[in-house]
């Protein structure tokens, strides 16, 4: 098992880390209550500037999805695959109850089972290894997949 010291989040402030129960970090407007992810100081709904950071729900439902069928251009893509090893991956929006829909890579053993409305859980884990360190990112996966 890799030590925490060897793990770096893909971006600061996206999720709580290190944590045994990591959560995405969003913001909630103190004026109109609208939730945004990632956290931001200004509210996109009421144009206010008074928001507070919140931890997001970890279970939601799949609102829409697609499958990325070709290796994305790099940069900006920086995943571990080569043209030879690339396998299509899923992306979608997960609706977190009473909060917001979050865009996420989806880890799914069987892409054919993806269906709008299915329950999805947050997982925060290794995305890629760079310079001897594990880059940690967030994903969603079908509830009960593991």
């Amino acid at each position: 098992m890799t030590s925490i010291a060897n793990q770096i989040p893909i971006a600061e402030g996206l999720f709580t880390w290190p944590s045994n129960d990591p959560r995405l970090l969003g913001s909630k407007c103190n004026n109109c209550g609208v939730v945004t992810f990632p956290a931001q100081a200004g509210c996109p709904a009421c144009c206010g500037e008074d928001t507070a950071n919140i931890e997001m729900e970890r279970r939601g439902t799949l609102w829409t999805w697609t499958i990325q069928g070709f290796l994305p251009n790099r940069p900006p893509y920086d995943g571990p695959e080569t043209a030879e090893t690339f396998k299509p991956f899923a992306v979608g929006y997960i609706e977190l109850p009473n909060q917001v829909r979050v865009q996420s890579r989806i880890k799914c053993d069987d892409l054919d089972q993806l269906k709008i409305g299915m329950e999805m859980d947050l997982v925060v884990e290794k995305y890629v290894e760079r310079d001897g360190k594990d880059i940690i990112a967030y994903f969603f996966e079908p509830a009960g997949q593991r």
Partner: protein
Amino acid sequence: MDVAIVGIGMHPFGRTDGVSGLDQGVYAARQALSDSKLDWNDLQFAYGGSSAAGNADSMVSKLGLTGLQFINVSNGCATGGSALQSAYMAIQSGMFDLGMAVGFDKHPRGAFTVDPEASGLGKWYGDIGMALTPQFFGMKIQRYMHEYGISEDTLTRVAVKNYKNGAMNPNAWRKNAFTYDEVAQSPMVCDPLRKYMFCSPAEGGCAMILCRADQAHKYTSNPVFLKAVAVKTRTFGSFEVFSQSQALDRAGAPSEQASKAAFEMAGIGPEDIDVAQLQDTESGAEIMHMSENGFCADGDQEKWLQEGHTEIDGKLPVNTDGGCLANGEPVGASGLRQVYEIALQLRGGAGKRQVPNKPKVGYTHVYGAPGLSGVTIMTT
């Protein structure tokens, strides 16, 4: 003060090796000048743009250093539409009488490369593989099909129609009309959208000469009048490309806002339009834009495509020049290509793809990242 289009010009779309994007813009500009029997030094101003082929205002060194006001426009896929909007305002304000809107581009082959940070997103968003426009198009139509019962058959029919129209357009890139099976069985790119349901980055140039409506007959016997031009950005709750999250409550798309504003400005409604160009970055976009622009109810597209309503001889011909699917997407030029086609149709000069019964009112709609739309309404 109404504004007229008195000259149109185009460099063929597609791939033109050995000709820079800028030179394709210059070619289109000269065509438009020749169409209106004007010279470059007659023009008082120009607005121009390109996304990947350099600064439009450097055209002046090729067209002539006349000292005119030339302003570069950069507004994603709506760059051409925004150049036209700017030219429209310049004349409507009374500041100028005669000028040009021009757009051109030349993109590398393959999918567009996006710089997430330039769009206000975190670097991680591209790192992890989400900064791709095809994903958005796939996800938006996936949800739309789920909500409104649109089938893959309808996605295929849109593509087949546009390639068929493109095959009648000498300036189009793809002049071969793909069959239904070729589209329906092409490789999956971003579910549910297949390879031949997507447009590809391309090259091309397009230019318009605009003037005060009361002077239009000085330059041409068949002017086309801009009755409305509207550009709108997204409002809170619309589902847009490059959104790390989206609100639970849905709001109307920027295309809906731009469409409503344009119809209000023109004082007419969707039922008055004889021919339309709707952004068809991919098949799903044309389907959703039919309703976002007010031409049909959500879900009616299934019937419309089955009954051929958007074919050249249908009740509302859509993308008569083959749209983005057959012409490709040179970002700076696409919005103006739509206006070029409508002008040609209203002038009765569209050749084999001419809409019958002398169309009098036309409509263009462009959509671009990160969520903006431009609409024009034109009349004879």
